[in-house]
């Protein structure tokens, strides 16, 4: 299936990435000539059938990166680098291309707050039907109606709730409705921006499991979907990610395999380690201090002021080697030390 060149590419190397981001930077120009470095020099790929979780503290630039991919940056933003998706560079595409071929068709957005994303005055059925008519070739009232019902079924949204308005749905069902809308266009890339914020743990698990299912399912052309999930919820990331990218102060400081990151040997960047150790089922100790202002970043490593391993070398920006930007990463064998400092949950209160 597919055309000959893609078969060749599959045979020679791994599958061609769905999304390929190179040197992506975003700057906001503020009044008074101030510049805010929201994203700096991001490099990553998302492969078909893969989930990449982009994690980091709030305000580190994660959502700006998502807006850049969708062409939704405000007017005072300048972007550089490239983000290739199916032969198109998302950063240079004009609004017409973004509106007609990218949003919904090449990128399905699973929003942060489904309750705010859905149109409050219309039923779920009406919104699904409109989306089907706009994004697919289905024509005719009966066919559109059937396609909308099928879209709801795909995310296990109960048919009996289709005629409800968003405020009549629980958080979990609203989330499914939003996911159904994101999947209608059969986009090769799903972009989920904090899809689990404010949900309780059971609902988080169910939401991410559903996203995982859509990544594992084959798309119409048999290639599979990629998922870029932006989140500060490390438990959700652990549950579904194949790879993890850790962002700090606008830079990706570590990009690694999820099993190695959450299990053994564990994260190698001191910031990533600090984030994991802050979890209540690990050491439950915060990283001292707060992230720097993106408008006023230090010259060298932005994490150095909070880093227990910082040295004089940190005054220079660390180069990215092997998916890691740090002058003194934790040794790969540091996993044992990391695990042994993790007290049992019950007796750990200070």
């Amino acid at each position: 299936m597919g055309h000959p060149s893609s078969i060749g590419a599959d045979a020679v190397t791994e599958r061609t990435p769905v999304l390929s981001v190179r040197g992506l930077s975003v700057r906001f120009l503020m009044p008074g000539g101030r510049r805010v470095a929201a994203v700096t020099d991001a490099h990553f790929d998302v492969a078909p059938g893969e989930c990449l979780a982009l994690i980091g503290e709030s305000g580190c630039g994660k959502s700006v990166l998502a807006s850049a991919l969708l062409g939704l940056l405000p007017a005072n933003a300048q972007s550089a680098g490239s983000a290739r998706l199916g032969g198109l560079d998302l950063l240079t595409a004009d609004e017409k291309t973004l509106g007609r071929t990218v949003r919904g068709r090449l990128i399905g957005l699973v929003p942060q707050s489904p309750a705010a994303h859905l149109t409050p005055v219309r039923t779920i059925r009406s919104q699904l039907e409109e989306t089907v008519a706009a994004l697919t070739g289905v024509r005719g009232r009966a066919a559109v109606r059937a396609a909308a019902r099928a879209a709801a079924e795909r995310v296990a949204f109960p048919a009996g709730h289709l005629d409800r308005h968003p405020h009549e749905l629980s958080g979990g069902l609203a989330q499914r409705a939003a996911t159904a809308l994101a999947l209608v266009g059969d986009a090769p890339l799903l972009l989920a921006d904090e899809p689990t914020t404010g949900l309780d743990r059971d609902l988080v698990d169910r939401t991410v499991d559903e996203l995982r299912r859509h990544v594992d399912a084959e798309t119409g052309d048999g290639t599979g979907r990629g998922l870029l999930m932006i989140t500060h919820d490390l438990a959700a990331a652990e549950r579904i990610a194949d790879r993890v990218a850790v962002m700090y102060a606008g830079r990706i400081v570590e990009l690694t395999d999820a099993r190695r990151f959450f299990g053994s040997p564990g994260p190698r960047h001191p910031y990533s380690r600090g984030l994991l150790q802050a979890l209540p089922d690990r050491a439950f100790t915060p990283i001292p201090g707060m992230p720097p202002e993106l408008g006023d970043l230090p010259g060298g490593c932005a994490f150095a002021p909070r880093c227990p391993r910082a040295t004089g070398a940190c005054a220079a920006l660390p180069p990215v080697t092997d998916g890691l930007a740090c002058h003194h990463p934790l040794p790969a064998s540091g996993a044992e030390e990391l695990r042994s400092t993790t007290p049992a949950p019950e007796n750990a209160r200070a």
Partner: protein
Amino acid sequence: MPEQPLLELRAVTAGYDRRAPAVRNASLTVAPGEAVGLLGPSGCGKSTLARVAALLHRPDSGTLLLDGAPVRRWRHRAPRAQRTTVGVVFQQPRLSADPRLRLTDLIAEPLRATGRREDVPDRVAELAAAVGLTPDLLGRRPHEVSDGQLQRACLARALVLRPRLLICDEMTAMLDASTTAALVAAVEDYRTATGAGLLAVGHDHTLLKRWCDRTVHWDDVTSGTSGTSLEPSVPSAM
């Protein structure tokens, strides 16, 4: 007779419509210095119960006792001594912070409201350090800081009158792991220093089990009834 509870809720029924109360027949105690975690799914009514305990919502029936004394008046009508016994931190800092106030004024507001203006400089400086806010952040308004920074200010505001009971309603649900750990550590430092009690309401049992001396589940707090009248917000099918 064991020591008198700091907070006692007896058979509290509360809500926004008498025919369909959000909380039915809930009972719960917090001993002096004790940290109690109240666990329950979204929409079960636990925030309503937290509002009752914080004297912010008058229950339809039942009794609330603070230090053994029944509470008879609520919100601004509650006697100051009872009102200032309790400090509250809510889930969404944006909705619980006046957007016009600088963080320093946000933290100082309870002192001004209770005529302790002269304590403002010392208390604000002390609390800003305790919750990890730097002086430049104190001069900003809510839209100029992150959720995590604003929640730090809201915690400082809740502690400024030295409450003997702190109620945290999903205080960290919007926050990342490191900010969560930092805020919990700030609460625990305060409790260690003052012996204050804590009622932490939430759905994250890993967090509450780690944080609190004792956790109770919503179903046990409201036992004796067949559950609440709300339709379950979480469908049971996976």
